[in-house]
């Protein structure tokens, strides 16, 4: 199996607290992998290490054959990992289009001198960037909202805009952090379909943190379960569902639907 992303014995300590304890983890190319676990299991910390927000205490992250451990977030993004945030972090005072354009930052070139002179090459680049951004907005179901301020969009659209913005970084791997949190069942269903479409149409590999088991079971190829910073199970959704340790971890919080 060709792995796009591999985490080797990844570890994170905060003071004396071990948030993620030597977790090994693999995302195969063009798969949808889910990371689940009870609240406080270390999922988001794990995510933040993959994207460079935190530096791991120990261990390594290999992405696309390259060791990216401890690299700054923008460098990791520009190597092909795009992400969304658990609590939406759009640039609220920018329009949808500008949000997406910020996502394309690493792929545009205009330096200071060229920007001030506004050379024909730069004009073309900017025009193409805008076209691509509009295309992404359309693809994400935000047609006609290009010039709306991000803060003024309805909740579901903000989630979509976050994805569009992440797609603008031209990722190979897309990390979605609880994308359906706060959505109603219908919105969730639409979003699930959207995630599947991302894989088929954009040829993306997707890593998902999710609470909603229907979403996880519906779209994932592989599921990894974290509890208290440790990986307690890994496998297909079916395997994981019947794993006794997983059931134990979830008892008292939320029962795994069977």
């Amino acid at each position, binding site marked *: 199996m060709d792995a796009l992303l591999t985490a080797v014995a990844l570890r994170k*300590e*905060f*003071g004396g607290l071990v948030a993620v304890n030597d977790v090994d983890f693999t995302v195969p190319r063009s798969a949808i992998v889910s990371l689940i676990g009870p609240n406080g299991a270390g999922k988001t910390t794990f995510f933040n290490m993959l994207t460079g927000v*935190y*530096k*791991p*205490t*120990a261990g390594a992250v290999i992405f696309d054959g390259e060791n990216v451990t*401890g690299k700054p977030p923008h460098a990791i993004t520009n190597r092909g990992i795009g992400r969304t945030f658990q609590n939406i972090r759009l640039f609220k005072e920018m329009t949808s289009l500008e949000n997406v354009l910020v996502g394309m930052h690493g792929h545009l070139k205009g330096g200071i001198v060229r920007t001030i002179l506004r050379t024909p090459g730069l004009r073309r680049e900017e025009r193409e960037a805008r076209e691509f951004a509009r295309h992404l907005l359309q693809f994400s179901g935000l047609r006609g909202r290009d010039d709306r301020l991000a803060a003024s969009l309805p909740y579901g659209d903000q989630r979509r805009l976050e994805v569009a913005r992440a797609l603008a970084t031209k990722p190979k791997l897309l990390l979605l952090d609880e994308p359906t949190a706060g959505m109603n069942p219908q919105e969730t269903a639409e979003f699930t379909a959207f995630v599947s479409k991302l894989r088929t149409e954009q040829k993306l590999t997707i890593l998902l943190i999710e609470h909603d088991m229907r979403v996880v079971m519906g779209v994932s190829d592989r599921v990894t379960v974290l509890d208290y910073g440790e990986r307690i199970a890994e496998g297909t959704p079916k395997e994981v569902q019947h794993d006794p340790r997983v059931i134990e971890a979830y008892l008292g919080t939320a029962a795994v639907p069977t």
Partner: protein
Amino acid sequence: MVTEARTEQLPIRRFAAINPIPLIGLSLVGLLIVWLAINLEKTPDQFLSAFLIGITTGSVYGLVALGYTLVYGILELINFAHGDVFMLGGMICITLISEVFNLHAGQAAYVVWPAILGTLAIAMVGCGLINATVERIAYRPLRGAPRLVPLITAIAASFILQNIALATKGPNFVPLNTGSSGAADFLPQGNVFTFGHGDQAGRYTWASLIVVLLTVPVLTALLWLVQRTRQGKAMRATAQDREAAAMMGINVNRTISFTFVLAGSLAGAAGLIYAVYFTSVRFDQGFQLGLIAFTAAVLGGIGNLPGAVFGAMLIGMIQSFNNTLSWHAPGSDWTQSIVFGILILILVFRPEGLLGERTPEGG
């Protein structure tokens, strides 16, 4: 999340490369120690008198620095106006001493001491109220605003306080009569002890000792207040998590006001000490001294009460060593640059300060 970010500042990696930053920092400290040692060897008496002056100025800085640290600990705000509150304290004291109590040389101790303590009490209460008023007007309405906004109003408040002093006391130094010891003339002018001889002779005056004797009880009272009382507990809780404190039934606004009163009254005490020891105050001196005291607070680890005093002593020492020592000392022309240089180096190399960044509870 915030605590996570702070711990993050010290990444421990298994195969960490050699980090040049601590090395540079350590070698700078090393050079400083070598310089001090050579000076001590060459002119021991000068060194001793510089040390004693350092303790005295450090006491004043310490009281002001505590105010910065208390406020920063609870609001994460650099209260730029704090130095000016201190300056107003000095103005209040000089006015009281020279115009109300009419203290002058040769008065009996039973006249002088109650007057000084009375001045201290009035200055502490006055400055506490001024500081709390600043908080009410300039900071409280902006609590939800971006972080830089209260910083800007803090600068505004600082200018306004300076101009209040300018309007009431004029643009020149407001003086007290100076005695032979360099301190105010109504204080005992003698020496506790003298040492050395010739041009290196040094002395430790009663006035210097009085400064320390006034500082120590104020500091002790503060520590007791923060660590042992109910109000102190509320402060510590508010500093840790304002929302949680509010949910636990702590009146957050009152607690913050109280912190400002406390910080202001420390500045008032510092104002008295400064007034009687240095004998003159000018309207724009507070800002400069405030910045130095802030540096001290950062040096010790902002939010950390013992750290502020420790940092203030260090800064006081560094300043007096620089001004007094003769072997390759840059001299008083460069004091500001050296203090701000330390501030910058500390923020760049060790932003958590020498003793670590902690909230007022000290843990």
